[in-house]
């Protein structure tokens, strides 16, 4: 597994843990009503699990597993995908600050879209028959 996939996948594991923790706190709150502000974690629960966990894990596994280029088994322009990794996580973390920074959601979503585009540019040509 390449180093970049290790980063993507381990980051996704961390979001899984945090996202599940937040979900568990909200579910417990639904059971016992002990501290209503727990509901403020709700947007982070969804962001961390859908984007941070599921999407990021998919990016990490894709970068690892899709066909490589013949000579030296290159994975193409890795720099683009590193930039995608950094922008993607910047986006998620900025969105986590939405209660403190007013335009956080807009900035974060924009960063995520740019990350997605960079990832697509970085891996597009690898979506090919194994030997080509």
């Amino acid at each position, binding site marked *: 597994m390449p180093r970049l996939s*290790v980063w993507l996948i381990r980051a996704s594991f961390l979001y899984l*843990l945090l996202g*599940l923790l937040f979900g568990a706190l909200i*579910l417990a709150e*639904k059971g*016992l009503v002990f501290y209503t502000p727990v509901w403020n974690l709700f947007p982070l629960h969804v962001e961390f699990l859908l984007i941070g966990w599921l999407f990021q894990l998919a990016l990490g596994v894709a970068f690892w597993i899709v066909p490589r280029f013949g000579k030296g088994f290159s994975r193409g322009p890795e720099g683009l995908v590193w930039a995608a990794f950094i922008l993607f996580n910047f986006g998620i973390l900025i969105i986590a600050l939405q209660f403190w920074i007013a335009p956080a959601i807009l900035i974060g979503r924009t960063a995520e879209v740019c990350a997605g585009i960079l990832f697509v540019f970085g891996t597009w040509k690898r979506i090919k028959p194994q030997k080509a």
Partner: protein
Amino acid sequence: MPLLTRTLIKTGMICLILALILGIALALGATNGLFPAYIHLLVFGWITQLIFGVVFWMFPKYSLEQPRGSEALGWWMYALLNSGLLMRAALEPIQATRPNAFSGWALVLSAALQFASGVLFVINSWKRVREK
């Protein structure tokens, strides 16, 4: 494919079917706390459980003696995920319509079980995410 993986994927498929049936119930106008059960049977019971199964099966070896990490931990992960999710799916609608101390505390337990299953997954998989 190891038995744990087969069990995770097949249980995930059952969650998928249950979710799709709940989707029909929702389309027919059922409410009362069924929507969260629908979403979580899909994203946790199906997608996440499928991922847990495939990661256990295909990720790089943990060690020569224990290529897939701890199988016992894997079975605990399976049991906690499904008992927690099942409790939630059954109790959240009760808590939404006729809240009572039993379903309240049981929801707290269900939240803890589901979070714990994620922790076990990360413990068992973290070291298998590495460079080769």
